[in-house]
């Protein structure tokens, strides 16, 4: 048959091609690869004594100063510089950092690399400890009921205007509390559901006051929360805002008519849209900022360019005003393959976002040609989790099983994690439960990594038989207890994400056949996923719990926390949780216990909180509300491709959205050798 021949020839051709792949000596190797280095990073020098007295600046700024267009560097930085000790050495000024982005929706890209970060507090390189950042100091008062934030004297916005307590008050009174700008109060500004307030003490001191002890507050300021600096501005959050600039767009300071005209001229339907636009770090180049770089050409153009902020308060230990690198240019990549291929070709100086782990071999192959090095930054979290919708009521039978601990445990035991790790993490991940990496301070103990999380078909089958799913059909699939035929479960996946949820789910589907579970994989598009979770139509869903290593600032993948989710553990419980029991349904006891502990933790000293954290994870691991599959892998932004001529690059960095990786490694200290 002609076709058969055409194929056979094709086979031979390709067989020849792949000959190249099949050669080479093979060393059987277990354990971690050389690509994962030791965790390291720059440090903030908090001891004012060690701060440099004299400052240097980038040549082009010096020129401006000479031309009288800019005040001298010392004035610009102010009396209390934010001193950062570079990882390896003092760098050189200059150069352009080339990277790629995928469009207006990709704003995280710039925030993570270039915002400084501009949090009041921020994590040290271990991602564990919150240290003063923009804030010179943070002082707990009144047993945690009040927090005194000391600002840096003489510190300025990027337009040269001083950064003072007024900017906090303005944000609190005119943005946060303005119903048009922000309809819903933020959990970050509240403790135990009770909202706090911000008050001015003096020009450089503000106080956050709460009704109950809020011991978590430093971590909240450090994490990617609603009080985490200007990146939150696009949704009217942040904790502070450039009052002097934004007032001109706020009805309280300008007449309605005038403001409406401004909006119309800018082609906006309402002043709200105008204000939100003007207050957007990525969209509005005129917006005064505190970050190391500031947007020059906005994110909604083919190239998103960021330039050094001449008033940047960041300096190195030698007194050089940071950043070293002049410019960050993110060019629009029409699709991810192009973006990756550009990285492979070495057209980017530093890339980790959107870099696809599946392409690791190709990256390694081209390291020399592209003159770059590949690093792996495994996360401390689980790269693949499977959420059960514990509130699923469209099919009571299924709902019942999802709420049966042994059912969830059995399914977890039915997964061959090594297979998945080998196939999709190229063996770089760690199979196991949902608990974060052992070194995480909330980790309940090594034994919980394996708990209910190893392949044990026999046990799984026994458990399923025992709970009343013994009956099987001709194909060997388990029958429903209510006699309505085969027990069919559906898992919802999203395509085009960092992790290949659909393909992995297909593999799990195959594995679960062995325990008689018929899993249907259903890839959906993002908006639909959202609709289905909101409508409580989701049964199982595959996702990851990145951020959960910061249990208290990023909890949405530990228990039912947010409604607008692409993977939910139970919308009714979310409502119950946020409405303090007024809406939704009351969770089952252990989930309730977990939620209580989480709430409690914000109001107790760290030692106690850590204990609570461990309890929470213990419960999560024992109950298997969420199946952990493979974790601590580099799947999400963990494959880092850096040009060899870039300096101060950590061999491994803490990889977490809550730490704005690579922000935690202070890109302001990167430089070109």
């Amino acid at each position, binding site marked *: 048959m002609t076709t058969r021949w055409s194929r056979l020839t094709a086979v031979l051709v390709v067989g020849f091609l792949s000959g190249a792949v099949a050669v080479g000596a093979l060393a059987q190797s277990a354990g971690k690869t050389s690509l994962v280095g030791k965790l390291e990073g720059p440090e903030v020098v908090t001891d004012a004594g060690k701060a440099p007295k004299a400052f240097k600046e980038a040549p082009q700024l010096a020129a401006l100063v000479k031309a009288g267009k800019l005040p001298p560097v010392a004035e610009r930085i102010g009396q209390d510089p934010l001193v950062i000790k570079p990882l390896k050495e003092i760098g050189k000024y200059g150069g352009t950092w*080339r990277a790629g982005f995928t*469009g*207006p*929706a990709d704003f*995280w890209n710039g925030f993570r690399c270039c915002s400084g970060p501009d949090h009041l507090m921020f994590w040290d390189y271990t991602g564990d400890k919150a240290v003063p950042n923009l804030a010179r100091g943070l002082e707990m008062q009144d047993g945690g009921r009040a927090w005194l934030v000391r600002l840096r004297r003489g510190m300025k916005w990027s337009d040269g205007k001083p950064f003072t307590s007024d900017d906090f008050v303005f944000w609190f009174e005119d943005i946060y509390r303005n119903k*048009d700008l*922000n*309809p*819903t109060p933020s959990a970050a500004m509240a403790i135990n559901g009770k909202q706090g307030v911000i008050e001015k003490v003096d020009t450089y001191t503000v106080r956050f006051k709460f009704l109950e002890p809020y011991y978590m507050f430093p971590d909240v300021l450090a994490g*990617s929360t609603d009080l985490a600096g200007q990146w939150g501005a696009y*949704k009217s959050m942040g904790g502070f805002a450039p009052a002097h600039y934004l007032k001109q767009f706020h009805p309280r300071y300008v007449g309605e008519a005038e403001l409406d005209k401004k909006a119309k001229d800018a*082609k*906006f*339907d*309402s002043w*709200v*849209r105008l204000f939100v*636009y003007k207050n957007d770090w990525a*969209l509005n180049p005129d917006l005064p900022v505190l970050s190391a770089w500031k947007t020059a050409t906005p994110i*909604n*153009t*083919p*190239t998103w360019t960021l330039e050094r902020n001449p008033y940047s308060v960041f300096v190195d230990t030698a007194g050089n005003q940071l950043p070293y690198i002049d410019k960050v240019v993110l*060019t*629009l*990549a*029409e*699709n991810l*393959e*192009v973006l990756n*291929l*550009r990285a*492979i*070709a070495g*057209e980017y100086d530093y890339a980790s976002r959107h870099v696809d782990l599946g392409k690791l071999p190709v990256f390694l192959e081209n390291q020399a040609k592209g003159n770059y090095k590949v690093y792996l930054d495994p996360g401390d979290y689980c790269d693949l989790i499977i959420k059960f919708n514990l509130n699923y009521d469209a099919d009571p039978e299924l709902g019942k099983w999802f709420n049966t601990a042994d059912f969830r445990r059995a399914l977890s035991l039915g997964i061959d994690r090594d297979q998945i790790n080998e196939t999709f993490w190229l063996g770089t991940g760690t199979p196991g439960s949902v608990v974060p990496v052992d070194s995480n301070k909330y980790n309940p103990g090594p034994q919980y990594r394996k708990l209910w999380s190893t392949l044990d078909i026999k046990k799984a089958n026994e458990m399923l038989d025992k709970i009343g799913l013994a009956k099987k059909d001709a194909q060997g699939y388990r029958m429903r207890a209510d006699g309505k035929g085969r027990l069919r479960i559906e898992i919802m996946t*999203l395509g085009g*994400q960092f992790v290949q949820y659909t393909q992995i789910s297909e593999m799990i589907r195959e594995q679960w056949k062995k325990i008689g579970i018929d899993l249907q994989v259903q890839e959906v*598009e*993002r*908006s*639909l*996923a*959202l*609709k289905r979770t909101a409508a409580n139509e989701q049964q199982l869903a595959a996702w990851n719990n*990145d*951020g959960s290593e910061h249990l208290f600032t*990023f909890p*949405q993948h530990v228990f039912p926390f*947010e*409604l*607008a*989710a*692409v993977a939910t553990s139970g919308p009714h419980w979310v409502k119950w949780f946020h409405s303090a029991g007024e809406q939704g349904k009351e969770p089952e006891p252990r989930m309730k216990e977990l939620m209580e502990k989480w709430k409690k933790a914000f109001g107790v000293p760290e030692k106690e909180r850590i204990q609570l954290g461990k309890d929470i994870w213990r419960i999560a691991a024992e109950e298997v509300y969420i199946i952990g599959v493979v974790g601590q892998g580099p799947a999400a932004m963990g494959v880092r491709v850096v040009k060899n001529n870039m300096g101060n690059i950590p061999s491994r960095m803490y990889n977490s*959205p809550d730490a704005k990786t690579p922000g935690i490694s202070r890109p302001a200290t990167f430089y070109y050798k």
Partner: protein
Amino acid sequence: MLAYVGRRVLLAVFTVWAISVLSFAIIQLPPGDYVTSYIAQMASSGSVVTEEEAQNLRIQYGLGQPIYVQYLKWMKLVVRGDFGQSMEWKRPVIEVIGDRLWLTVVISVAALILTWVLALPIGIYSAVRQYSPGDYLATFVGFIGLAVPNFLLALVLLYLGFVLFNAHIGGLFTPELQDAPWSAARAWDLAKHLPIPALILGLAGTAQQVRIMRANLLDELRKPYVVTARSKGLSELRVILKYPVRMALNPFASTIGYTLPYIVSGSIIVSLVLGLPTVGPLLLKALIAQDMFLAGTIVLLLGVMTVIGTLLSDILLVWIDPRIRIEET
């Protein structure tokens, strides 16, 4: 003649209107709206959007009104030459599209020309030498383009370009000239980047054109006037080129209109793979993000482009075929 053109123009206008309705309808087809996909986007990148915020957004974007109201609203803008604001890009649609439309046209036209350069000789040859090995070979080559999935071809070429020639990956400009103002240098840079996309696109159309040319010519070759021409003692080549080919070109010209949308569609896919700054990838994003004004405008503009293309080809036809001119006047 004028009457004819006038009639065609009127028809075109009607068609454009129909397209505007259709395109708007297309955008409305998928469930949910921009806000839905925005929240989903947020949620999947780890940030939380509450119901109230969603409602706010809906009101601000004027969503939730009945579709015909939104359509009229849009049309009011369109007739004023302003196509409204892109929700995702937070800029006027026109700005967002910017050069992309022209680049799309450039690529499409380049592809069209390439198609003809390939298709004409192949078509003529395989008609004159029907069933000869040459005929088969030519047709074969022509069909290859049609048969090879162009998205795969594009990716392979992209990769080979990098491996073999260290070519810049994707795009139509070298990064330096990416957003430089138009200049000779930039135009030349564009010209240098054109061949590969044009080829990939052109190949797809070629087969079709070869077929048309071949069929037409086969018909014409049997007409007596060819014998007349021969009996004058003209050389075979001259006979064929002056008479039957000339005739066969007429229906050929009339296919521009139908080839254009074909190529534009192709350009969407190819642009996506090669990362070309055309309207293609923009449209795809817009449709997924349900950024209705942007998506609607792009579909509308593409439609208009093809209508104009058809119109031109009709007029061209009248111009090159005197007979029609006589009948029509």
